[in-house]
């Protein structure tokens, strides 16, 4: 019974991931982005859980719980850790207008399909079909990094990129050994914390977190 | 041994001949110009007079003012020793190699230039500067014409060259040889400060080269300087004569041959002197900064001579 809905489930999760990524590019409100990020974390955790159940690996289920706690709840909470009132006002004014951005998103998605098809060969496995989504998320995350002006929006981009990588690794190789998975998550967590601290310092020093005012160091 | 005898004869002959040559040149010129002239022995008298005066020297002048004239004379005398004028029997170890001869001549040039500078006046420096410039620009013509002469003989040893021309006269009138001879003559005119490069007659600062250098010299210094340049002129004219008309030069030693050689070279030199002075009457001195053009022309001749002798022969 599970076997025949398994592909649908995979497809669903992957679709959710891609959708959330695209929405992140579209929406400019920081709060919305953070919420989307949380959704994406949950979707990723679900994906891992599905794969784990399908492969019958209890280890993967553990991992999915880890992901849920870190990506789904922990990081978004950290990002949103601020009086909701102030965070509502924060509107991103991106360097790239939404239409162009969304068009780029589609292009990047197509590119990732091409690449993955060449690298993995379009195997009949549903995971193989879903894998391009991960690469697309990586590229979209990069796009966010390039196009967002605010520190924490860049942070979100970075996290999106990271989710993408996680998605790919899970879809292609059923995840790396559990110990390393911990290490990776820890690293990401620390990086995000550090960036968060820096963003705080930035606000105290420059009275704002607009990254593109960091132009003092140049040749 | 024979070489020594010939050398001695040549030196003695030319020491006697050189002033006479100058006298002849001046006398011919005077006669053609309709002046009485002073006779061909005047240079002798001048030298004797100068030798019998106390030279006047500047306090700042160095030993160069004394040594320079000697060096000039010695270099000219060496020319008389080395060149095949009377006979073509060279020394074993110092054959009359044309490159050596040219550089021996250059010793005299340098000595004269330094004497000019040593005077410590504007004139001396000016003359010396112009003199050296001309000498520098003449060098290529000189060496290339030598090169051209050396090709048929297969050596740069002058006595051999003269002998080859003696044995096979058709070489002489070959275009190559004619070109080379003309180039060499122009070079020699420049080296010996004759018209059209320099005017030995005047003391006008715009024209002076040679005279400007010896302006500060006096007494025996001046005398030796004059003698030196006269000897040089005579010897080089003798060379041209033997290259153009090698007959009469002594090739294997004999008393009679020696006499013939002496007479023939005397005649050649004096005839050339007459030709020279006649020519100089119809020539005007060119401007200093047209001299390079003249020399460039002669260089072109010499270069043509060499390459032609390769590609024709």
């Amino acid at each position, binding site marked *: 019974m599970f076997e025949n809905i398994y592909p649908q489930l995979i497809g669903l999760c992957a679709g959710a991931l891609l959708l959330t990524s695209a929405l992140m590019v579209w929406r400019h409100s920081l709060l919305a982005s953070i919420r989307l990020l949380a959704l994406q974390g949950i979707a990723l955790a679900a994906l891992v859980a599905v794969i784990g159940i399908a492969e019958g690996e209890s280890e993967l289920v553990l991992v999915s719980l880890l992901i849920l706690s870190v990506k789904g709840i922990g990081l978004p909470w950290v990002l949103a850790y601020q009086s909701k009132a102030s965070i509502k006002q924060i509107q991103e004014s991106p360097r790239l207008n939404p239409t162009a951005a969304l068009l780029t998103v589609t292009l990047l998605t197509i590119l990732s399909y091409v*690449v993955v098809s*060449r*690298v*993995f*060969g379009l195997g009949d496995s549903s995971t193989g079909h879903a894998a391009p989504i991960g690469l697309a998320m*990586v590229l979209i995350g*990069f796009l966010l*990094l390039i196009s967002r002006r605010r*520190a924490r929006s*860049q942070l979100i981009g*970075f996290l999106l*990129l*990271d989710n993408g*990588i996680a998605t*790919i*690794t899970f879809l*292609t*190789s*059923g995840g*790396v*050994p559990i110990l*390393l998975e911990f*290490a*990776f998550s*820890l*690293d990401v967590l*620390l*990086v995000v914390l*550090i*960036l968060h601290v*820096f963003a705080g*310092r*930035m606000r105290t*020093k*420059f009275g704002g977190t607009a*990254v593109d005012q*960091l132009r*003092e*160091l140049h*040749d | 041994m024979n070489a020594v005898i010939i050398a001695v004869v040549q030196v003695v002959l030319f020491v006697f001949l050189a002033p006479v040559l100058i006298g002849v040149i001046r006398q011919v010129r005077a006669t053609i110009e309709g002046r009485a002239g002073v006779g061909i022995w005047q240079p002798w008298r001048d030298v004797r007079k100068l030798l019998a005066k106390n030279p006047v020297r500047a306090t700042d002048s160095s030993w160069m003012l004394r040594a320079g004239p000697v060096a000039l004379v010695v270099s000219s005398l060496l020319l008389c020793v080395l060149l095949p004028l009377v006979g073509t029997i060279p020394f074993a170890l110092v054959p009359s190699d044309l490159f050596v001869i040219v550089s021996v001549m250059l010793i005299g040039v340098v000595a004269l230039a330094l004497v000019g500078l040593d005077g410590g006046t504007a004139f001396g420096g000016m003359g010396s500067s112009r003199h050296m410039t001309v000498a520098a620009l003449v060098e290529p013509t000189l060496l290339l014409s030598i090169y051209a002469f050396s090709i048929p003989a297969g050596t740069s040893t002058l006595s051999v060259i003269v002998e080859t021309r003696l044995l096979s006269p058709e070489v002489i009138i070959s275009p190559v040889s004619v070109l080379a001879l003309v180039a060499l003559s122009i070079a020699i005119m420049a080296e010996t400060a004759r018209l059209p490069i320099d005017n030995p007659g005047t003391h006008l600062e715009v024209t002076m080269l040679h005279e400007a250098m010896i302006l500060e010299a006096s007494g025996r210094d001046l005398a030796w300087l004059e003698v030196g340049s006269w000897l040089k002129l005579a010897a080089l004219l003798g060379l041209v004569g033997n290259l153009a008309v090698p007959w009469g030069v002594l090739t294997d030693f004999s008393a009679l041959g020696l006499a013939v050689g002496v007479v023939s070279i005397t005649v050649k030199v004096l005839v050339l002197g007459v030709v020279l002075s006649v020519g100089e009457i119809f020539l005007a001195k060119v401007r200093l900064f047209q001299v390079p053009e003249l020399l460039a022309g002669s260089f072109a001749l010499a270069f043509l001579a060499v390459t032609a002798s390769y590609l024709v022969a």
Partner: protein
Amino acid sequence: MSLILWIPLVGPLALAGLSLLPGTFALRRFVGVAASSAVLIAGLLLVSAVLNGAVPETGGGMLRADALSAYMISVVGAVGLIATWGGLSSAASSRTKDAASYEALIALFLAAMSLAVLADSIGLMWAAVEATTIATAFLVGHHRTGRSLEAAWKYVILGSVGVAIALLGIGFIYAASVGTDTPTLSWVQLSQSNLGLDPALITAGGALAVLGFATKAGLAPMHSWLPDAHSQAPAPVSGLMSGVLLSVALYAILRIQSITDLVIGPEFLRTMLSVGGLLSLLVAASLLIRQRDYKRMLAYSSIEHMGLMAIGVAIGPAALPSVLLYVLGHGLIKATLFVISGRILKVEGTPLIADVRALLVRRPGLAVPWLIAMAAIVGFPPFSIFFSEVGIIMAGWSVGLGGVVGAALVLLLVIFAAFTRLTVQMTLGPPANGVGFTPDYSAHGPRLPIILALATTATVAFVAEPVGTLLLQATAVLGGSN
């Protein structure tokens, strides 16, 4: 034997903890020195072990020290020692809270780099490399000025994004190993020739991993963080980053290369690394011509040298001994230069080349070592960088990369000229204010580390035994049969 492997990890961590304890002001300033000495000693022990044919292993095969790792860990220790010792802070300044965290982070940084070179697993190594970013983030931002904050932000974002790309690549490689029946991330197993890994995956994985680690190695076009971070970090930190962090990333690239060469042959990475190396040289040359800041000048010189090393890696086994020798020479000299630059910055109070004039007349105590180290870094003998460069160039022609090497030489000439000009502007010439000054002969800090570093680089190239053997063994580890 295998316990030695734990020293460079546990030692620094313990010292880091110590420095965080209250009431350790007196000892605190020596934490960095002690940590790097621990690493150095462990490295030398491992080297001797390796030279005796042993390959220490522990932690269930997670930690492993073959010739290459042993060499790298000693380099980390040596350079760390020079940088920390040379930048030893004054007793007074070490009483603050900042100083504690500073020393602790230095120790942490050393531990992370040691782990990176000792790990026998790409994954663990990746984690360690990322850990170095985490450890150095606050070190770069140590001064808490706006500029250092900016540098730190750029460093962390660019660095971790790059390393994330590497992670993607590693994921592909792992996928390839999953494709075979033995899923693994261990060097030793991945670099067995009979594994039958999927070429397409390895190509993609290798390319992405190299691209990612190239970011940490400061290769163009991923280099952008480097000049800012190096110019803003405290001098010892800049020395450590430029001296070894870059090389550790290069070590990662070497390991990846040893895997891909077996599966898809050297051509692909050779092209990629040649392009990267030449680009780095080009960037360094272009931005050195009219450089204004002497710490940035040193940073770009690091990019240049990493570029040349990358070309050496591209050339392959024929050049690898030179590259490894290069790592040591460049590390020591660059650490020295950064230490001295820190002292110049302290006494002159300006990072601008235009404001530092006639240093040789005014401050011989700083200018003389500065000039000697400069001579060493531009590749004058007897310093070992000369031999490394000559070795790489010669090897390049012998494997048919003549075009690449030739282009590299052209760029190196531009770099040399620019470098000479800038150095001369700083040090030589008559003092501006004419008379009325007394030459300052003090070195403004410990002299011994600088002398040690210069002496080592001047002599190491002539020590055929054991250095030569070690380099050969390390090359052999990477599948080179030179």
